[in-house]
């Protein structure tokens, strides 16, 4: 099975998955009590005139399968529709305005956390059993166990609010450092532990002995032969790592007053703004599934056995 065929196959499998995600979210929304047109205290709903327009737009008064079909059709043409609560806002506004901020935050955190985690994991793995390995691995476990909300709280309360050493928000590059730092700590621990385990296992393989026996430098053995084989567990760990980053982004954005998507998601939850919740969830699922897809294809490119297993 060629790599292209493998990739195409994975793309085709992803589409029903996405429909499933949409149907699951839709079912949850549809089954709910309460109405977005009677928002809780502190929120202003839309006027009656607009309610009628919105009901027609989303086919809210028609059978669920019709409502769902129209919604899927609209989403397929990248039209996520207006908010049911805020008359001046559409879901597309949030996806174009706020979501990129969240994405930037997540990517900045991953950009420093993954290399640091890999380096730490390799460093600990080649020294397995030593005191330095123990220190590095305990450190990684500590980072993973340290809740992101606590780090975000400490950094924002002291460095931003009390001592005013760093600006809050998301306008300047200086303001982006602390949030990216806070969000990346748990992924560092996660990646380091993952890579360490993979390195320890790979070091016991015959091909490593062969590589050493034919006189390769230790550096090359580690960074080429060993690390290449820890790619599989690393890519398999991509989804949990994305979950860490997305979950953490909620708290980091709240702590540092970052105008990302999490505030819109929470507000939409409080006001039962279904299209907003669904739109953001669907886009999130698309991003995660796409990341998953890329990691699978990378894995297949690195390891022909994966391609063959899929073909069977």
């Amino acid at each position, binding site marked *: 099975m060629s790599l292209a065929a493998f990739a195409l196959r994975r793309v085709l*499998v992803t589409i*029903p*998955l*996405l429909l*499933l*995600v949409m149907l*699951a*979210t839709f079912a*949850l*929304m549809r*089954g*709910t*009590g*309460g109405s977005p047109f009677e928002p*809780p205290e502190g929120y202003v709903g839309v006027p009656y005139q607009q309610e009628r327009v919105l009901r027609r737009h989303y086919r809210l008064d028609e059978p669920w399968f019709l409502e769902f079909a129209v919604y899927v059709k609209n989403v397929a043409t990248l039209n996520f529709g207006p908010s049911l609560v805020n008359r001046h806002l559409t879901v597309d506004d949030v996806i174009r305005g706020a979501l990129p901020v969240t994405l930037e935050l997540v990517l900045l955190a991953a950009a420093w956390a993954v290399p640091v985690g890999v380096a730490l994991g390799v460093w*600990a793995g080649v020294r*397995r*059993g030593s005191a330095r*390995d*123990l220190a590095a*691995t*305990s450190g990684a*476990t*500590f980072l993973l*166990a*340290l*809740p992101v*909300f*606590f780090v975000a*709280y*400490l950094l924002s*309360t002291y460095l931003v*609010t009390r001592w005013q050493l760093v600006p809050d928000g998301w306008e300047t590059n200086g303001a982006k450092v602390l949030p990216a730092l806070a969000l990346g700590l748990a992924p560092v621990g996660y990646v380091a*532990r*993952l890579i*360490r*385990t993979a390195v*320890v296992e790979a070091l016991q393989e015959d091909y490593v002995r062969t590589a050493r026996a034919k006189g390769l430098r230790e550096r090359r053995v580690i960074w080429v032969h060993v690390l290449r084989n820890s790619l599989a567990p690393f890519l398999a760990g991509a*989804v949990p790592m*994305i*979950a860490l980053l*997305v*979950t953490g982004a*909620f*708290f980091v954005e*709240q702590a540092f007053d970052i105008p990302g998507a999490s505030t819109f*998601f*929470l507000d939409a*939850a*409080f006001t*039962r703004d279904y299209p907003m*919740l669904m739109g*953001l*969830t669907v886009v*999130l*699922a698309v991003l*995660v*599934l796409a990341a*998953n897809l890329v990691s699978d294809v990378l894995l297949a490119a690195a390891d022909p056995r994966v391609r063959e297993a899929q073909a069977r």
Partner: protein
Amino acid sequence: MIPRALRGRATAPAAVVLVLLLAYVLLWPAVSPYDSQAIDLDGGRQGPSLAHPLGTDQFGRDLLTRLAAGGRTSLLIAGGALAVILLLGWAYGMAAALAGGRVDATMMRAVDGLLAIPRLPIAIIVLVLLGFQAQNVWATVLALSVGGWMLTARLVRGHVLTVKTRDYVRASRAAGARWGYVARRHVVPNSAGVVLVAALLELPAVVVGEAFLSLLGVGPQAPIATWGSIAYEGWRFSRTREMALATAAIALFAVCANVLADAFGDALDPRRGPAA
């Protein structure tokens, strides 16, 4: 995932710390001279003293007592969510693996799809479904369960698939046993171990999950104390001590459960060998 050298040595201390933490959480509210919810506005924001070893919070509540009572609720939520997660995940994984073939492939693809949404957004959506008026302990249990059963299902399925290829299962089949009998006699009893590992793996996730929901203001509402709600009040009133205490309790619990999960995982998998 903990290094082998640490594994053997860390297991016993982790178990002891976990038992001590459980004893504190379960017993201290009964022994303590204070009520975890009694408000004393004159005695708020005290530092540590003999009367209040961990000080008092914004509303003058004794933090040592409140942390224990909060832990009790947090662990009740965690236990409830864990029970639902294990039951759902076990049944789903078992069904997929026993069915095999296309059914198995389709069922596991569905799990892949559901795993594409991190569990925090799923939990929030479930709470929306429950309409928020029921912002109590059981709503939180349900919210955490709905997003949490997929990894257990995957774990159980993988385990059952390997059991299906074992010699004793093949011998049983060769001797003429029906699949239903083999499943009852060999496969189901053999899944006890993997369920235990799944439980220890999910335990920290549900405890942390409760804290996440509470910190976003959608967990059980005041005056119910949970570790998450104590952290939430710390966040709102910029009280670092509450934040640190609740975080320490959650993190300590999570790390101990993780260490035990690794140890049990090793013990159940002879190929991985004992701790060095």
